């Protein structure tokens, strides 16, 4: 497919701006660009067609089944897009005075109220723009809390080995040393290892629950107790909240801080990688450290204030406001009943697929799962030479998105499936049939998998070449 630059023809552009209606003012020569600006020049017809072609080579939730584990690729309701496009939200300036943005502040205030209720927290900031950004915010709250008590010796953060890479990366970014604790055979936190790691140098723990293998940490109260007794705080990574929303709350598990992924649990679109939103909630004793400004409800009128001991801003203005707005619209559409039902269906769908696939495939962990589950293809690879990667590539020919591959790291040849509640039984059944058929095929024709995919517009890319000789922009001269 041609690049937009390769479609460019000098003088082909459309003019969108009116002529300057005041005297032209040209800045002094030495302040001006010295190099030509090689942006593409295309007619509007060409722009429309170029991006339509690009869109035809993208696979979204609208295209088909997308069981990408740990990413919660649920359907993105279109009403939320319509609401986010309302003039009164889209065309307001963040530095308007409070009396002219009462609607926007009401949105933030309502969102705080509802998301605190869902998580069991007392206050929430909407500044963080993604899950990882929320993690950084949360870990900085932990740091601020210990410092405020004159306790500067807590330099370590505990992270289970099954955690997302963002957890240890976040702890490092916030100036902490990471203590990785192993998982037990059942995929859960090894309580003895946790007990051994929890000393007076521990600032806190970062935990996903259900964890990244889709299993609920049944000893969660014990885990938070151990950390609290050691003087640390407990941080809840909300990546898997879809498994428990409306059923149980991190706050009631005695977590002190929570981040949400509104682009996972609360249906806002993933946009090819973003924008997301990663609000952070906390218990009342930490509220004074939250990034600001925060919104205060003064009996129907709203104003913004900076918390007394705020860690400071983590982003300009109020975060990804239009994403928060979409998530709020979703919560209000679902209501308390719909939130619970959605959760239950997500868990039922995962268990249904797990049970059916277990007729052939090996699950990494036995028994009921929560909203996602992990298969291991280690056995299949040993028998047939077909790896998780090969299997995923063969799925690309079946008009469905492959599961998450090679995560969590503690499971060899892992494929992680998360169907979500918005998938139909028919599509899940079709997927199971495809997986079964491919399982048989792996035994009779493994070569098929090594050369897969076969029907996509491009075949497997040479990633070694891409990394050894990085070509990260169009070269023009070619």
């Amino acid at each position, binding site marked *: 497919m041609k690049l937009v630059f390769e479609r460019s023809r000098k003088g082909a552009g459309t003019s969108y701006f009116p002529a300057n209606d005041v005297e032209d003012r040209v800045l002094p020569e030495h302040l001006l660009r010295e190099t030509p600006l090689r942006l593409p020049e295309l007619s509007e017809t060409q722009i429309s067609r170029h991006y339509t072609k690009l869109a035809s080579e993208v696979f979204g939730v609208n295209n088909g089944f997308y069981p990408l584990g740990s990413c919660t690729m649920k359907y993105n309701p279109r009403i939320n897009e319509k609401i986010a496009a309302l003039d009164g939200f889209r065309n307001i300036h963040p530095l308007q005075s409070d009396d002219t943005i009462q609607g926007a502040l009401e949105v933030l205030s309502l969102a705080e109220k509802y998301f605190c209720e869902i998580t069991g927290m007392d206050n929430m900031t909407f500044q963080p723009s993604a899950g990882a950004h929320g993690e950084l915010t949360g870990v900085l709250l932990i740091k601020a809390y210990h410092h405020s008590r004159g306790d500067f010796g807590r330099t370590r953060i505990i992270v289970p080995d099954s955690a997302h890479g963002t957890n240890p990366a976040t702890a490092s970014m916030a100036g902490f040393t990471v203590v990785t604790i192993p998982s037990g055979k059942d995929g859960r936190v090894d309580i003895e290892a946790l007990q051994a790691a929890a000393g007076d140098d521990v600032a806190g723990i970062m935990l996903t629950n259900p964890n990244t293998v889709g299993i609920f940490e049944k000893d969660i109260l014990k885990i938070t107790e151990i950390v609290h007794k050691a003087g640390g705080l407990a941080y809840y990574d909300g990546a898997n909240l879809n498994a428990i929303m409306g059923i*149980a709350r991190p706050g009631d598990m005695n977590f002190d801080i929570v981040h949400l992924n509104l682009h996972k649990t609360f249906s806002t679109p993933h946009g090819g990688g*973003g924008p997301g939103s990663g609000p952070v909630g906390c218990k009342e004793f930490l509220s004074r450290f939250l990034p600001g400004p925060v919104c205060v409800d003064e009996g129907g009128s709203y104003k913004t204030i900076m918390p007394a001991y705020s860690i400071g801003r983590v982003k300009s203005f109020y975060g990804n406001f239009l994403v928060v707005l979409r998530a709020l619209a979703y919560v209000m559409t679902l209501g308390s009943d719909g939130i619970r039902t959605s959760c239950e269906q997500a868990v039922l769908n995962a268990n249904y697929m797990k049970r059916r696939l277990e007729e052939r495939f090996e699950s990494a962990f036995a028994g009921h799962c929560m909203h996602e589950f992990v298969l291991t293809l280690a056995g299949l690879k040993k028998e047939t030479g077909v790896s998780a990667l090969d299997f995923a590539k063969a799925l690309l020919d079946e008009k469905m998105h492959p599961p998450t591959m090679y995560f969590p790291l503690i499971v060899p040849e892992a494929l992680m499936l998360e169907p979500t509640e918005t998938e139909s039984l028919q599509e899940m059944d079709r997927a199971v049939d495809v997986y079964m058929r491919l399982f048989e095929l792996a035994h009779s024709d493994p070569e098929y998998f090594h050369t897969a995919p076969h029907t996509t517009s491009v075949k497997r890319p040479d990633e070694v070449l891409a990394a050894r000789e990085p070509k990260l922009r169009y070269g023009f001269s070619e």
Partner: protein
Amino acid sequence: MGNYIPVTDAERERMKKTVGIADVSEFFAGIPEEVLLEGSLNIPEGVSELDVLRKFADISRKNVVFRSVFRGAGIYDRYIPAIVEYVTAKEEFVTAYTPYQPEISQGVLQSIFEYQTMICELTGMDVSNASVYDGATAAAEAVAMCRERNRNTVVLSEGLHPQVLEVIETYCFGSGMKIVKVPLKHGRTDTGLLSHMLDETVACVMIAQPNFLGQIEDAGVIGDMVHDAKVKFVMNCDPFSLAVLKTPAGYGADIAVGDGQSIGPAMSFGGPTFGYMACTSAMMRKLPGRIAGETVDTEGKRTFVLTLQAREQHIRREKASSNICSNQALCAMTAAVYLSSVGPEGLKTAALSSISKAHYLKNKINGLKGFESPECGEFFNEFVTHSPVEPHLLCDRLAKRGILGGLPLKGELEGYILWCTTEKNTREHMDELVEVLREVCGL
């Protein structure tokens, strides 16, 4: 109500049978009883789509959408061609995630590659990533890129947006880097003071171009000074201004960052926008976030992939220099569509028009008694004037006439206002503003 679940009641029963459960509550048996929620969440029951639309339409009307905007300070009321909104609303772009499977994600990957090329063109830099959250977080990430074992101090110009400074401070509270600020002199970074701050502990110096007050910095002098001290030079630039202004590469910057709201995304109450990050080839492997690259597939066909991934958190874990995972891909694509639509000439036209209008308006406002500007240099599309009336009071009065006035400044510039013009402000609206100012100030 409205829970977007396709499975029917009858199907649900069948599924439960397959799994071997009588009730879904069995799945939650592992959750300790004292943790299970008693009753339901204290949130209203679900409502219909029409009800929710009505509710939000009502809330949106509690916000004031101004017909005439003279406030910028980081978020700009620019004209976005209609095609931009339509193209970026395509469901495929909206509902896909990070292109982990390149064979079915060429559209997203190519769009990122095109975006990266456009950012490189605007800034003159060698390499761009696929975007970060916003301009402020881009600045904070740039600071982290420059850190070296013995260089742990960052020198920041006070001409940076105050919120950019605040975000860098927050990130440095985490990383432990030390911050030193260089004050402004006549609206621009005080190069005399800066020259005394550059020692062997300094990792980088960051300035804004144009700066928060709209002033064009003497970036050449600063760049030379910084490099003589073997310190990295980071420029925080409004990408829109780079249609006409000298590029950060032209000033020898090692890293260019900024907020992309001015080249595509709507004001959106400040978010989502996106942060761009571009750097020299030498710093490529320190650049955080996703990067798309060109390669070939097994049949030799041009193919795009996410590359240099060993820099990132999912591989490097606690050794990664940034934790970023999700970025602002759709906003970056919005910028690419905007830039492709308006083209190089369109962008220059809009930039020159913004500059011309700012100079026109400054002259007009300066002509009013009590509205003189402090001593300053060349400026882009923002400028400062004094206000004879308390600035917030003045802006309240303008608001009543449907005009969003300039931004009342704080600190040393208390009593002053930062005005902004874009290609959207017509001569008629500017003349009206001046008339209203005259009227409300009793001049």
